[in-house]
């Protein structure tokens, strides 16, 4: 096996696999990616059994063949090379020699037939959507998904399509929650590109993040669902993510209907104030007391282990005075997902959730449960 390839193309190709292959798997081959030559190009395959990636890059093939090799090591090697072109050679003992100018690397690989198979996707209906739209929805929701594997259904991002108005073209919608807060984002009208999901699907958070990274850089991508997999294609790459086979909770029920006290803030001013509270607040649950009174919002955080923080923001709000406690990390993450300059924070009394939205944008909302300090 021997080929020549553009250094930057190769570097970018390998980099895309780093989020997928495992770093410290006890099964060594799962730390690897598969490289196989094709006519005038190489194919790179990466998988962790949950996410599969197949990508292709132009290369000059001298001798066909295939090999698997540590993704991380390969990436680090390519990164430190300086010539524009790399030569990649594999011998019979599965040893790889990579040359860049006069620099030579040698590294051992494992035979390709040991690598888990990632099937090509063909002949399933795919729908063209905007890469930016898709990436945006993931960015605005995935942070709220649970990290606890015991609640499989909440560790994913719920993806569904919603008709826009009466029989309008469907739009994409994503929702994520960890049981304490929830974020929901709706794409522009027609953003689903004709894709209609009868019942939403639950895509693992990690897979969604990989999809976001790839979609971000693309003008258009093609998406579809096949055999329990969410599939996204670009010109030279296919990524497949195993869906979580579990029912998603009825999230619509938890979106509060009655309005609390609505306060409008500058996004950046509020973010900074909250971050100042976060410095001292308890690192497990980051409690911050928010008090609305006399036309200002007072923030305070008190942690016996560290100290105190206090701040005030002038704010206009409708309704009476109000105090509640929140996990400041949840609030910060919800506000960071807002693109608008102004944020509306609807604070409710007692155990009722707070609602965060961008002013003038009804397509994104984040709900945060308050914290209760036992007396």
């Amino acid at each position, binding site marked *: 096996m021997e080929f020549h390839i553009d250094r930057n193309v190769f570097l970018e190709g390998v980099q895309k696999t780093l989020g997928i292959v495992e770093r410290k798997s006890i099964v060594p081959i799962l730390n690897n990616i598969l490289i196989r030559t094709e006519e005038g190009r190489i194919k790179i395959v990466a998988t962790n*059994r949950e996410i599969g990636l197949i990508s292709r890059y132009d290369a000059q093939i001298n001798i066909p063949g295939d090999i698997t090799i540590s993704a991380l090591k390969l990436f680090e090697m390519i990164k430190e090379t300086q010539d524009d072109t790399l030569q990649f050679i594999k011998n019979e003992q599965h040893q790889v020699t990579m040359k860049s100018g006069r620099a030579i690397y040698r590294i051992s690989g494992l035979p390709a037939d040991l690598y888990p198979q990632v099937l090509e996707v063909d002949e399933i209906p795919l729908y063209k959507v905007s890469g930016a739209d898709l990436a945006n929805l993931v960015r605005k929701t995935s942070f709220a998904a649970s990290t606890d594997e*015991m609640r*499989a259904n909440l560790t994913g991002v719920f993806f569904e399509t919603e008709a826009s108005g009466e029989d309008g073209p469907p739009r994409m919608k994503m929702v994520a929650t960890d049981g304490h807060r*929830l974020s929901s984002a709706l794409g522009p009208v027609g953003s689903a590109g004709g894709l209609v999901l009868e019942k939403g699907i639950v895509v693992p958070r990690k897979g969604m993040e990989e999809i976001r990274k790839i979609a971000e850089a693309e003008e258009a991508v093609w998406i579809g669902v096949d055999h329990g997999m969410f599939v996204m294609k670009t010109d030279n790459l296919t990524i497949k993510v195993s869906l979580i086979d579990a029912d998603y909770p009825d999230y619509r029920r938890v979106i509060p209907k009655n309005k609390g006290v609505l306060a409008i803030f500058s996004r950046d001013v509020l973010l900074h104030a909250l971050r100042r509270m976060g410095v001292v607040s308890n690192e*497990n649950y980051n409690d911050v007391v928010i008090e609305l009174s006399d036309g200002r919002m007072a923030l305070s955080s008190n942690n016996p282990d560290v100290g105190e923080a206090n701040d005030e923001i002038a704010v206009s709000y409708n309704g009476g005075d109000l105090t509640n406690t929140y996990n400041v990390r949840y609030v910060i993450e919800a506000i960071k997902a807002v693109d608008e300059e102004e944020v509306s924070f609807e604070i409710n009394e007692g*155990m009722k959730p707070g609602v965060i939205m961008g002013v003038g944008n009804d397509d994104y909302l984040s709900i945060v*449960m308050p*914290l209760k*300090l*036992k007396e």
Partner: protein
Amino acid sequence: MEPDSNQNNVLDAARPKLAQKINILPPELAHRIAAGEVIERPASILKELLENALDAGATVIQIELVKGGCDALRVTDNGAGMEPADVPLAFQRHATSKLTVFDDLYRLRSFGFRGEALPSIAAVARVELTTRPATALGGTTIVAENSRVEELREAGCPVGTTIHVSQIFAAVPARRKFLKSEATEQGACLEAVNRIALASPGVKFRVLNNGRLLWDMPATADAGERIGMVLGRETGSGLLKVKGVRGELTLEGYISRPEITRANAKDIYCFVNGRCIRDALLNHALMTACRNVMAAKRYPAAVLFLTMPSEEVDINVHPAKLEVRFQNPRAIYGLVVETILAGFAAVAPALDDGASPMPATDPGDANLTSQVYQRRLEEAVKRYTLLGGAKKSSYRSGASFSAGSGALFSAAADRRRGRRDDDASAGEGSPSFLGGGERGNLERRHEPGFVSEPTVEAAAPRDPADAPAFPGSEDGSPRRYFASMTYLGQAGGCYLVFSHDHDLILVDQHAAHERILYEELRREGREGRLAVQPLLIPEVATLSPGDYGMLMEHRDLLREAGLEIEPFGGHTVSIRSLPAALGRLAPRTLLEESLAQLTGPTEGLSWGEKRDRVLISLACQGAVKKGQILSEAEAVRLGHDLDRLPFAGTCPHGRPVWIVLTERRLAGLFRRT
């Protein structure tokens, strides 16, 4: 002699066509059958009555409880009924329709045989029995109280038997005092129904409490369907059917898929020839099979039916017939392990392409596994034989167990007691690094086998007396023990290695974090500022009736720990909030683990002790696990947190948090003099 024909003989004897069905046992037989206390709580009455009903061939059984069975209970069946002539004998001790000669004892296929149930019940309660066999036109009512027949008359009634037991323990105030809350007793009664219902899917059961229908289980031909009714639909749909035969032994049953696990062994039901038993050997075999398949310290839900010739099992070792002796434990152990492993193997592919990142079982492991299996088998059989001897003698010595409640799991109690003694001696020998308040804790929870070794100098850096009241308080600044150390790295995915002057310090990361979380939860509770995270989407959990009762009893206690629970109809609860410090964990697991802490021998524990148990379990779940890779910052942070604690020498379970290898000790190890 064919076992089956014997079974028929015995069962035939129960059929109504014989006029004289009840015989008085010969006295020597009465002696050979170890008598014991059969009745300790309403649930035991219920169990005896249900077994009688099934022995009578009932297909519909209705159970009515008053105040969870604490006041009264009634069992109505449509079984064979009793001939008027037999009725007066029913309350005589050792009157049984099921056994005439001692040798029959070893071929028993019916549930009851000692003739103890009704007389024992009548000794502690008022029993009104109304019965009619299909052959008779009219029925008979008999009332017995305080072991005396008070009344005997004819009565009009449907075919079958109705037994109404009231004034339970009225004559035994001491026993009555030991009854728990209504909810707990009701849970125990329902658990008794569970056991019977699992083995008799063809019988319809209805359970009412205070006139309200709790449970209606229609008859079904499919044992799996009945399991679903009993253990909950979620579990029922995740069950694997297993079957294995070895000679005359047959094992059939259901076990939960490996991903469905429980926090304790409560949902493991083993039946031997239709009788629900608890057997250490069977449990051991089951857990051997589940090793490596299920997460550590998790248990499957399982319902296993073992069928074997009656001669090969002695069911007469326990008064409540909860334990048995097998003649050939080895074969049974092997059968259980192999059958269940085969069942798991059948689903392995499905597991593999699921989300689980776990590598499929490596075939190269096979040898190793069989070695492990052999070792565990020998260990189990050995323990079984040893234990068996002790157990037998303690039952035979009879009188000492009349207290009842302890007798159920006396073997376990013995073991505990033994362990405790070990601990006491270990405690004496161990260096005094325990703060006063923690000492009791340690002694109680000490793991066997942890005896402070001479190679290890477990040490707290200072006298507990000069500890600050709690971390961060203005008086006394926090210790700077760990803060002054150099962090070297993590070994074995579990031990953080520090150096301090010339000493080497090893910290168990899980134990350390557990102690930190525990102190934090306790401190927040004490200062009345426990942070609680209400849930946006309350988590709904379906519990077994027993758990439900216990949960309702301890609701306030759990709320104190930040777990707010509300009844959600039936045995379902919704979890409304979690302690905020553990907010990222699954609410249901937290609840299950906390409940597991409250089951078992909790009598005599004060409210505070029970709360501590729950807090310990919460801390344990929230703590970093073995195998979790910690960054340097995290490791150093853990050390700082330890410095701030008033006491950090051991984790709340009593294991040491850190050990110090002094320079001298190291020199000794390297033979430097």
